[in-house]
Every structure is written in structure tokens, then in C-alpha cells.
């Protein structure tokens, strides 16, 4: 593998899409990496992505949302991911080509939506 260096930091175009469906998955997406930091094209090299989230704005102690995926988006569930509702979390992603990682993208902040719990069911006297 030639003298290719660190992959260019993602030109981040993250967007959070909330689907109003029963499954209620959120989707984190980002733009594809096409060049190395020296401006040369990645070409046909395989690019994989890792997406993380953190409650820290500097993405400290990140938790993985997706690891080594080839796509440029990942679906997640707030509860399953353990995100604190009503609080701000931060997303980041990095690309990997040929075993070399890019830097993490600029963090994207997102206010985890608060939702009322359902009411207790089957209230009864016993």
C-alpha cells in the first residue's frame, strides 16, 4: 500500500432523522469519504465507518453505534443505545481505509427527545 496517509477527516454532513413509525428508530447518517488528507482520491478502496456517541462534547468515553460498516448511515434506538432522554448527546464517526483510521469527525450534538412513559396498566385491588 503506497504512501497514503491518514484519511481525510470526514466532511461531516450528519443528520438525524426520526421516523414516525412504530419501531421508532433514529438514523445517523454522514457523507462518504472520497479523498485522503493529501487530497488524492480514495478511488475504489474499501471504506468502512465507525459511528460513536457520547455525553461528552469532546466525544470522550465514546460508545459505539456501529463498527466497520460500509454504509454511510446507521439506525439506532435511544433506549437500546442507553442514551439519556432529555439530555444532549454527541455523535462522531471515523472512516477506515486499509486499516488506517481517520480522525473523528466534528461532534454533532443532538438533544435526545423526551417522551412520556405509558401509564401503568392493569391497575387493580388485591
Amino acid at each position: 500500500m503506497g504512501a497514503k496517509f491518514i484519511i481525510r477527516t470526514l466532511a461531516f454532513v450528519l443528520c438525524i432523522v426520526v421516523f414516525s413509525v412504530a419501531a421508532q428508530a433514529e438514523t445517523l447518517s454522514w457523507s462518504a469519504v472520497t479523498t485522503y488528507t493529501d487530497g488524492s482520491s480514495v478511488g475504489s478502496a474499501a471504506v468502512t465507518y465507525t459511528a460513536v456517541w457520547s455525553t461528552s462534547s469532546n466525544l470522550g468515553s465514546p460508545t459505539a453505534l456501529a463498527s466497520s460498516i460500509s454504509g454511510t448511515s446507521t439506525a439506532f434506538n435511544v433506549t437500546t443505545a442507553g442514551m439519556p432522554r432529555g439530555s444532549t448527546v454527541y455523535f462522531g464517526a471515523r472512516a477506515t481505509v486499509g486499516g488506517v483510521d481517520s480522525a473523528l469527525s466534528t461532534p454533532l450534538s443532538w438533544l435526545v427527545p423526551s417522551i412520556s412513559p405509558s401509564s401503568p396498566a392493569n391497575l387493580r385491588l388485591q
Partner: protein
Amino acid sequence: MTFNRFHLLFVLSALIGSLLFGCGGGGEGAQSQSAGAGASSPTLAWDPPQTYVDNTPLDPYRELDYYEFYVSIDANFTDNDVPVAQVAAISNVLSQDGRSYTQTLTNEFSLDNLLPFTQQGTVHYISIRSVGVDGLKSNFSAPVAWSLT
């Protein structure tokens, strides 16, 4: 032996009158059950919620904070009603060896605790709401009737 972080929040007794005799309005309304009270009050039981109102999954161990208890002579509860008690959604039960605690979902409550807010010879309605860790409250549960004879 059970150690829990239940704590009752009995609001001012001055509220009792308006609570017991002044409720009205909409609410979910449907009376689901009634039972008589003998020498000892019955226990109120419920199934903790497992979802949010949009049907996304809810982890009651991590995402529920407490329950609120409402008592009224009117089965229609509204946001104007004031809770007479609250209890933590999770209790810590001491293990048999006494060395650790196990988290348990709270799903029952002795109605003896609500007697100060009731009147003998009157049918009261009880409803509860779950409150998430972010403070958002559920709708009122379908009330149950409690006949104090």
C-alpha cells in the same frame, strides 16, 4: 427484610377536601374494578409500563423515576388533580445473605397509606401515573374504585 427508597409525599391536608370533593373533567374515565375495604385496606397493584407513549421500548429499571397516586370521589382525573403520594419506581431489596441489594420494580402499594385522604362510607377512585427520569408524566391509569365501608 426489605429496604426500599419508598417515600410517601403526603401533600397538605388542606388539599384533601378539594381533592376528594372537587375533582371533575375528562380523563380516561373507565372504571376497571372495585373492591370493598375490610378491617385492613387492600393493596393496589399494577403492571409497570414497558413502553413510551409512542410505543418505543422503555426500560423501567433505568427510565422510570416514580409513581404518583391520586384519590378522588370522581373517576375522571385531570391534570388539575394533585397527587397524594408518590413511591419510587425501583426498590432495593436486601439479598438473603444481607450483603447486597437487588433492584425490584415497584408494582404494589398498601392503600393504608391513602386512608388519611379518604372518607368512610364513600366510594373513592384511585389512579396512578408513572413519571420518567426526565420528569415527564404518563397519562392517568384507568381508575379503580375503592369502596370504604
